[in-house]
């Protein structure tokens, strides 16, 4: 009985080892932006279907992690969604693979429909604290923001300009929890990746311009950011093949069908 168990466990361990070694296929790892992660996973799946022997792994972590791991070699491709790449990304070759808008969102119960850039800045800086000051209900504004490593936050703050986020703003650590918080709080305001908007939140027009696909692509809606794939050194081999696939009409169609905007209109 015991002997059998020992043999079984040896076989089990050996088979795991064999399986691990047998993976001689080329493998590519992507890491970074959580906004692009689901798209990258889908693209990787499609790519692996048509390319046998290639293994593509996708990890999240946020844009800052994407830049870090591309630099350190932990991932061959880093993903980042920000308006401007930070200095740490200087040694990396960036390729824009998609664009994404950032929408200012409020609860659907909120009567406000438009904010100017100035007003958005004042709200997030804590200068405007009541919806009444903007022509809405007499209710305090709940400002909700992302954590400091978020690409969505850095893009938002960069484009709106000179934001010193007020101290008592709520912080949520993903697009999903932002949407949940805003949909639960009638006085909340926040910003959200364009692809994440649904009927639970109401996107506002910014300076009178709607955050529609059309306006983001032609550049009229200014709160938008590119999504970068970052590679250290020359782009070649399997990494190049994969990036080429992402940029191919098929890859771009996947991106477009799932809510992001293609790199080129």
């Amino acid at each position, binding site marked *: 009985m*015991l*002997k059998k168990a*020992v043999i079984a466990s040896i076989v089990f361990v050996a088979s795991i080892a064999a399986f691990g070694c047998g993976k001689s296929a080329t493998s590519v790892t992507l890491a970074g932006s959580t906004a692009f992660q689901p798209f990258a996973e889908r693209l990787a799946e499609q790519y692996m279907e048509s390319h046998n022997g290639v293994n593509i792994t996708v990890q999240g*972590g*946020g*844009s*800052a*992690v994407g830049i*870090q791991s591309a630099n350190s070699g932990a991932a061959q491709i880093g993903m980042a969604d920000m308006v401007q790449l930070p200095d740490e990304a200087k040694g990396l070759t960036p390729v824009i693979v998609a664009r994404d808008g950032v929408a200012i969102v409020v609860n659907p119960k909120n009567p406000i429909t438009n904010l100017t850039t100035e007003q958005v800045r004042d709200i997030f800086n804590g200068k405007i604290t009541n919806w009444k000051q903007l022509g809405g209900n007499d209710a*305090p504004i*709940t400002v909700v923001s992302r*954590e*400091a*490593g978020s690409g969505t936050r850095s893009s938002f703050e960069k484009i709106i300009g000179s934001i010193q986020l007020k*101290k*008592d*703003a*709520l*912080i*949520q*650590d993903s697009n999903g*929890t932002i949407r*949940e*918080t805003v949909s*639960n*709080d009638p*006085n*909340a305001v926040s910003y959200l990746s364009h692809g994440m908007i649904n009927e639970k939140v109401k996107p506002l027009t910014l300076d009178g311009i709607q955050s529609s696909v059309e306006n983001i692509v032609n550049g009229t809606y200014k709160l938008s950011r590119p999504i970068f794939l970052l590679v250290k050194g020359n782009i070649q081999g399997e990494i190049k093949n994969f990036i080429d696939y992402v940029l191919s009409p098929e890859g771009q169609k996947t991106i477009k069908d799932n809510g992001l905007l293609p790199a080129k209109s």
Partner: protein
Amino acid sequence: MKLVGEKGVRRILMTVAFSAISALLLITLFIINEGLPFIFRYGLKDFLLSSDWNPAAGKFGIFPMITASLWVTFGAMITGAPLGVAVAIFLSEYAPRPMMKVVKPTIELLAAIPSVVYGFIGVMVLAPFIRSYFGGPGLSLLAGSIILGIMILPTVISISIDSIMAVPRSYREGSLALGATTWQTIHMITIKASKSGIIASIILGLGRAVGETMAVIMVAGNSVNIPHSALDSVRTLTANIALEMSYATGMHRQALFATGVVLFVGIIILNSIASVALRKRTSKR
């Protein structure tokens, strides 16, 4: 068929036991190794007492997080401890034995619910309730305290019951024989005799409250802010580490490990107080 002898078993078990302890040792060394140099470089006073947390600008003051952790823990004690002790007294002194045999394991099941579920309930039910009846953003110190108060219940209740049950039957019989009522016996004899165990149960519960992360991230709002009222949003030490670790580099990363050191020291202090209290109980008997 004898694969391992008596001695072999002993050796194997010893190895396993020591690997558990060495894991603890390694974790301790790792956190201290990563965090302490930063504390020395940045200055303990600036680190603990400055309220300016702005990693991008090289400012690492965790005072708001320390206050938040203390307040949330205190709040958890206010909500959880009286409730827990009351349940423990009821179940051990008033409830019929069969009822306790059913209720106690059920309460202990509370400990098996993942903290993210508590957080979810907090976000969906508690936060909107607080927002509409008390005002503020809802995700707040109060919400965190209540959720943690519920989360520490299993710890408080089961250790309290154990220590109340450990009071010798003769104590109660003596008291009742002298003409004391049940309640008089409970609060003058039983509670007094099991006091250290009850205190230990609360302190162990607080240890859990201080260390809880996921539920707190979800319900407390996470703003780096010294709270002025229970309705303000706060960020605890644990939430600070969990929120920022994924993208922190360099000094920022070390500062988060240093935050871990502070937390670690706090929890060690709490647990030592609890074990001293528990030891007092056993030595008295």
